[in-house]
């Protein structure tokens, strides 16, 4: 029983990262109607920048966190303003290829700037353990979980109560109608990309202490896709539910299913859900936009 409880706690906290990645992807998708294949590279860039500020520059962790989130958010904002909006209206694969190209450039530039070897980033909460009920959880997981909760609540509050947030919701539903009502749609799209970049950077800073700071961090993108699809394409609550569910499935598969199924599970889920049940848990019911 204690093991099940522990697995649930771990699953939820790993899932919280997937949920955050998926949340960032949905934000970008709502704005520009394309999946940002460079999102994983933004996560990786966040981790590398964080490492650079904390280790060689000896910044305090929290200052570095703020700086990295701000920098990556600015970068994502700039990408939307300068590049993404140029390909709106072209066939969908064009935008996908643009983000793939940008992802390659980010990955190449990062390993040119920092070198390809992997490294460690120590966080203030490193190596401490929390006792919750009968289970022992690494404090890192607790931090991740609370960060995910905070971000989700902040985002929900922003969308619900601020004028810009309400305009973003409106423009996500129907860009033309929102435009006609006076919403500054292009600026809102850029803002959505900026927010998505900020969330990606946060994911990078949260992931770095529990994994390594490494160029392969971008692969968290595919986990984000799986979470996105599981929860229902294009739904923000769905992205979070999907992420948590994916984290849980992974943890339980690692213990109860044969060796190696844990690595494959996210991809098999992604394929299975899209083929059998394309709307996911909380997907949009008003027909496909594809």
């Amino acid at each position, binding site marked *: 029983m204690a093991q099940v409880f522990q697995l649930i706690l771990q699953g939820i906290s790993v899932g919280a990262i997937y949920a955050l990645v998926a949340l960032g992807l949905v934000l970008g998708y709502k704005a520009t109607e*394309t999946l940002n294949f460079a999102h994983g590279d933004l996560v990786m860039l966040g981790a590398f920048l964080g490492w650079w500020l904390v280790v060689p520059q000896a910044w305090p962790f929290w200052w570095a966190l703020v700086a990295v989130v701000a920098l990556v958010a600015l970068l994502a904002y700039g990408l939307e303003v300068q*590049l993404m909006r140029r390909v709106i209206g072209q066939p969908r694969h064009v935008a*996908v290829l643009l983000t793939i*190209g940008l992802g*390659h450039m980010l990955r190449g530039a990062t390993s040119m700037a920092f070198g390809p070897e992997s490294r460690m980033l120590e966080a203030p909460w490193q190596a401490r353990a929390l006792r919750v009920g009968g289970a022992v959880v690494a404090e890192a997981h607790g931090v991740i979980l609370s960060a995910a909760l905070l971000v989700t609540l902040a985002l929900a509050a922003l969308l619900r109560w601020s004028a810009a947030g309400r305009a973003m919701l409106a423009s996500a539903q129907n860009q033309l109608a929102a435009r006609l009502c006076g919403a500054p749609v292009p600026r809102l799209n850029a803002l959505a990309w900026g927010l998505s970049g900020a969330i990606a950077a946060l994911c990078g800073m949260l992931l770095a202490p529990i994994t390594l700071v490494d160029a392969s961090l971008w692969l968290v993108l595919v986990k984000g*896709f799986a979470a996105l699809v599981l929860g229902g394409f294009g739904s923000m609550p769905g992205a979070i539910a999907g992420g948590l569910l994916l984290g849980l499935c992974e943890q339980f598969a690692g213990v109860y299913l044969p060796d190696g199924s844990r690595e494959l599970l996210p*991809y098999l889920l992604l394929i299975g859900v899209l083929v059998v049940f*394309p709307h996911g848990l909380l997907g949009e019911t008003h027909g496909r936009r594809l």
Partner: protein
Amino acid sequence: MNRVAARWPLLALAAAPLGWLLPEFYLAELSHVLVLAIAALGLTVLTGWTGQVSLGQSAFVAIGGYGHALLLAAGCPFVPALLLAAVLAALAGVAVGLPAIRISGLHLAMVTMACAIVVEHLAGRWSTVTGGHAGLPVAQVQVFGQSLARTTVFYSACVTVLALAWALLAGLLRGATGRAWRALRDAEPAARMAGVPVARYKVAAFALSAALCGLAGALMAHQLRHLTPDAFGLALAIQLLVVVFVGGLGSLGGALLGAALVGLLPQAIAELKPLLPRTLALRTGLEAFVHGAILVFFVLVEPRGLVGLRARWSARPARRRVYARTERGA
């Protein structure tokens, strides 16, 4: 179109004697380009002609490569092994294509991407058959009495396969099949109304595309000489999509041009490195960066790819190409 289709295989035949003129090293690079072009032709069928974006062609390349190597190890001669590898990959293509009838666009891109990752994982895991990460050696065989290990022989084999694939595709594109594919790409409901069996043609495109990628994988096996799963990873799938797009989506000549650009890029970068400042040249990641930059350049400047650039530069008005994507508004 007829003229173009007829001209290219002739050009390929004309290229064959190069095998005895060029130094071995360049010949090996050229063979690499040809193999890449064969796989790119496969993706052209799928993405260029039926509009199904696939990020998972590396899975079919892997199946072709491993299948071919295992058949050779079992004592099968080269040509039947090559054909059987293509058939194996085509079967895998049907297996992916059948469920893919239901999905399109971004969903399909994600599903195929996941397939590519799953196949790479399986190749690493199923080590009793594939040798896992330790690798699978590829037997060196004779083709018509010549050893395939010789660069010139391998190059001729690549030219032959490419020319045959080219002729096949050019023929299909001209005929009813090509028309049906383009119809369902440009307006699926309209194609259905006109009596095109959409599902069957979509699966057929998947099968043919996978078969060509399988052929490329089989040839690639001889080039690698030692198969490891990471040679057939997501990076290869993305590279193929870049080849097809940078060359000019939907154009056979474009697939070849794109393969030449992308295939020769690492060598070109290596040659240019001494000219760069030392601090930049010694860093890894330059290749990925240039790769991405080329893709971004083409997306923003010339989405029709190299073929479009050529059409823009040549003084004569661009010929109306039946296989070009019809322009649609926003």
